[in-house]
C-alpha cells in the first residue's frame, strides 16, 4: 500500500507537481483580496498547466527535436510549440490584468478587493 503510493509519487510526480501548483494558483486567485496577488495566482495557475504540457511531451531517452544523423528518439516538439503560443497568451493576459489593476488603483485608490467593493457601494 505504502509502496503503491510511493510508486505513484515516483512515476507520476509531474502530475502531482502541476496539480499542487494549480491548486496554489487557484487559491491565490480566489482567496487573496489583493488584486496583484490574484494576478500572481493567475500566473501560477497558468504556468502549472504549461508544465503539464511540457511534461507530457517527454519521451524516455528522447533528445531535443533537432535533426541529427542516425536512429534517435526525439521528444515530442508539438507541446513545446503549443506552450510557446500559450505563454504569449499568458503574458498578454497578465499585461491586460496589470493595466486594469493600475487603472483600478487610480480610480479607487486601493488594490484591495474589499476596500474597492466598499467604495463601489458608497456610490
Amino acid at each position: 500500500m505504502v509502496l503503491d503510493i510511493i510508486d505513484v509519487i515516483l512515476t507520476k510526480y509531474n502530475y502531482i507537481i502541476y496539480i499542487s501548483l494549480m491548486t496554489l494558483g487557484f487559491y491565490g486567485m480566489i482567496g487573496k483580496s489583493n488584486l496583484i496577488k490574484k494576478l500572481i495566482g493567475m500566473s501560477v495557475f497558468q504556468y502549472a498547466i504549461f508544465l503539464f504540457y511540457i511534461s507530457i511531451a517527454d519521451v524516455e531517452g528522447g533528445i531535443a527535436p533537432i535533426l541529427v544523423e542516425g536512429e534517435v528518439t526525439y521528444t515530442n516538439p508539438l507541446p513545446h510549440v503549443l506552450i510557446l503560443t500559450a505563454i504569449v497568451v499568458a503574458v498578454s493576459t497578465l499585461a491586460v490584468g496589470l493595466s486594469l489593476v493600475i487603472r483600478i488603483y487610480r480610480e479607487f485608490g486601493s488594490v484591495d478587493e474589499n476596500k474597492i467593493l466598499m467604495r463601489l457601494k458608497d456610490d
Partner: protein
Amino acid sequence: MIEELSNHLPILLIVSGLIGAFLTPLIGLIRKELCSFWASFITLIQFFISIILFYQAIQVGRISYWLGGWEPPWGIEYAIDILNSFILVVVSTICLSVAIYGRKSLLKEVPEKEVQLYTLYILLCTGMLGIIITGDVFNLYVFLEISSLAAYALVAVGDRNSLVASFNYMIMGTVSACFILLGIGYLYLMTGTLNMADLSRLLPPLYGRPAILIGLALLIVGLSIKTALFPLHTWLPDAYTHSPSAISALLSGTFTKVGIYVLIRLIYSIFGLEYFLRNVDIFVFISWVASAGIIFGAIMAIAQDDFKRMLAYSSISQIGYIALGISLANNFALAGSLLHIFGHSLMKTGLFMVAGALIYSKGIKRVSQLEGMGNVMPLTMAAFLIGALSMIGIPPTIGFASKYLILLGAVESGEWVFVVVILFSSLLTAVYFWKVFEKVFFGENKWKKGGKEIPLSMLLPTMALAILSLLGGFFAPVLIKVFELWMSGVIPGGV
C-alpha cells in the same frame, strides 16, 4: 482570380480581420473618425465572406482549408460545415450591425478612444470567427484567448465600475481558458492529435478511459464559464451592465453564443452522442442545471431596475434554454437550440442597442425612468417591443419558433419537468418585459419637450435586428431544413 479567391475564403475571413485590426492604429493616425468606418468595412467584408461560406457549406457539405498547405492532422485545418458556417453568419451579422451602431454610441459613451476601441473590436470579432471556423482544438484555444483579451479590455472602457467588472471577468475568463487548455491537453495526451475530425475518429475506442472523462469535464466546465451557464455566470451581469452599450450588445449577441457553439461541437461532433448515451450520462446534470439557470435568470431579471442589468440576467435565462436544448439531445431540441442561438443573438443585441439608445439620447439607465418613452422615440421603442415579444416567445417571432421546438424536444424526451420549466419561464419573461412596456407605452409622458429619435446610424441596425427577429419566425422552417442536413449526421436515427 475571383474563382481562385473563393477557394481561400476561410483564411481570408481571418486575415482580413487581422490586417484590419492592426491597420486601425495607422488609420487612426490619419483621422480618428475613420476608425469606425474602417471597422464597419472590415466586418462587412467578413459578413459577406460568411454568407458565401454558408452557401458553399450547404452546397458541398464540408469545406476544409489547410493552412500553409499542410495536410491535417499535421497542419491546422479550417473546417467548415453547416453548423459552424451558420454560426459564422450569425456572429458576423451581429458584428456588422454593432459596428455600424457603435459609431455614434461609442463616441458618446467613450469619447477619444476610437483607435484602441476599434482595434480591439475587430480583434474580438475576428477571434470569435476564428473560434468558429477552426478545426483544430488548440487553434481554438488561441482564438478564444485573443477574443477574450479583447473582450476584457473592451469591457473595461465603460464606467467606473466597469474596471472591477472587467477584472472579475478576466479572472473567471482565465480560469475558464485554463480549464479548456488543460482539457485539450488531456485529449492530446490520450489521442496524440489536435484535429477535431481526427479526434472524433480516435476517441471511440478510448471511450472507457478515465483521462478522456477528465478532459471532457474540464472542457465542459471551462466552456460553461465562457457561456455564463448558471451557476458559473457570476461575471456576466456586472460585465454587461457596466461596459459601453455597444460592447454589451456585441458580447451578449455573440460571445456567449460562440461558447455554446463550441459546446455543441464538442458534444456532438468531437465526442459524439454515442459517448454520452453509453458511457457518461452528463446530460441529466446539464439539463437540470440549465433549467435552474432559466428560472434563476428570469427571477433575477424581474428584480432589477437597471435596464441593462435586467437584460443581462435575461441572457443567463435564455442561455439556459439553449443549454437545455442541447442536453435534451434530440432533433427537435437541438434544432430549437440552434435556432435560439440565432434568435437570441438578434433579439438580445437589439435590446441592448435600445438600452444604448436610451443612454445616448436621454442618459436613462433605469427602468423606472422610462415613463412615456414610447412617445419620444417611437421607432426605437417599436424595436424594443418586437425584441421583447420575441424574447417572451409570442408568435410569429423567432423566439416563439425556437422555444416551441425546444418544448417539443422536452415533450419528446418525456421530461415533463422541463416542459413546465420552459412554459413557466416564458411567463416570468413576460413579467419583466411587461414591467418595461407599461412604463414605456402607457406611462405618463414626462418628456413633452425635446422628443427626438436617435441618429439614423444607430436606429437602422436596431430596427434591422428587430425586423429580422420578427421575420426570423418565417425563415425558421428553411433554417430547420438546413440544420437537419447537419443533424442527420450527428444524431443517430436521423430526423
